[in-house]
């Protein structure tokens, strides 16, 4: 892992279009400002870890269904769709 020291208001560039700035430092909390293209998802890693765990649990814990009769699902006509803001 690359380790860099930064002071308040100093930044790190990742690639050409992701910029991370140290906005505030208070005891054991560091506030970071992140400028990234809207096409890149930015999340706290605990959230991502939790989704990973849930997916693994879904694939692993869920009981074996009674085998027979699996067929490709018709995903169209599933009813309501989410509202998106394109």
């Amino acid at each position: 892992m690359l380790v860099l020291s930064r002071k308040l208001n100093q930044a790190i560039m990742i690639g050409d279009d992701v910029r991370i700035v140290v906005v505030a430092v208070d005891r054991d909390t560091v506030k970071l400002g992140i400028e990234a293209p809207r096409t890149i998802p930015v999340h706290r890693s605990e959230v991502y870890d939790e989704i990973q765990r849930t997916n693994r649990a879904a694939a692993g814990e869920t009981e074996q269904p009674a085998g027979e009769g699996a067929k490709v699902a018709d995903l169209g006509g599933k009813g309501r769709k989410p509202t998106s803001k394109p």
Partner: protein
Amino acid sequence: MTETIVEFADREIALDLPRFGACTYRESEVIAFPWGLPGFATLHRFIALTLEGQEKFVWLQSLDDPAIALPTADPWQIFDDYSPQLPPYAVSSLDLARPEDFVTLCVVVVTAGAEEMTMNLLAPVVINLVTRTGRQVTLETGGYSVRTPIPRKAPPAAGAQAS
């Protein structure tokens, strides 16, 4: 090289799955997950399966690893007021233009003995049905939980029988 272009034939492909046994699918029914799924980052090709008598569930079956299948369901079957606001990265990366072109499924966890059933409302799986491309999207608003308990007496699916 005088390789001739092989005409794309959407033939049926037979599979023998550890979970579901024999089943067939067509190449045109494959859903690409270019970003994988959290926890399964290297799996990029899935098919959506249903089982007889369990039509409320859609299993996302990996074609890269036949042992992996994730149960999902239409969230509105259970949570009528679910209102996910898809973040811009999801809309652009999945090329979501028209609402009728995509479908939303949420991963379900059923613990051993079916004592508890939860649904991941925080990170729905969104599938563009036109490009057949999917991605599990983390919502930034709405305050949804990764493990939202499904009430015991969930009302039957309103749209389940609609064709």
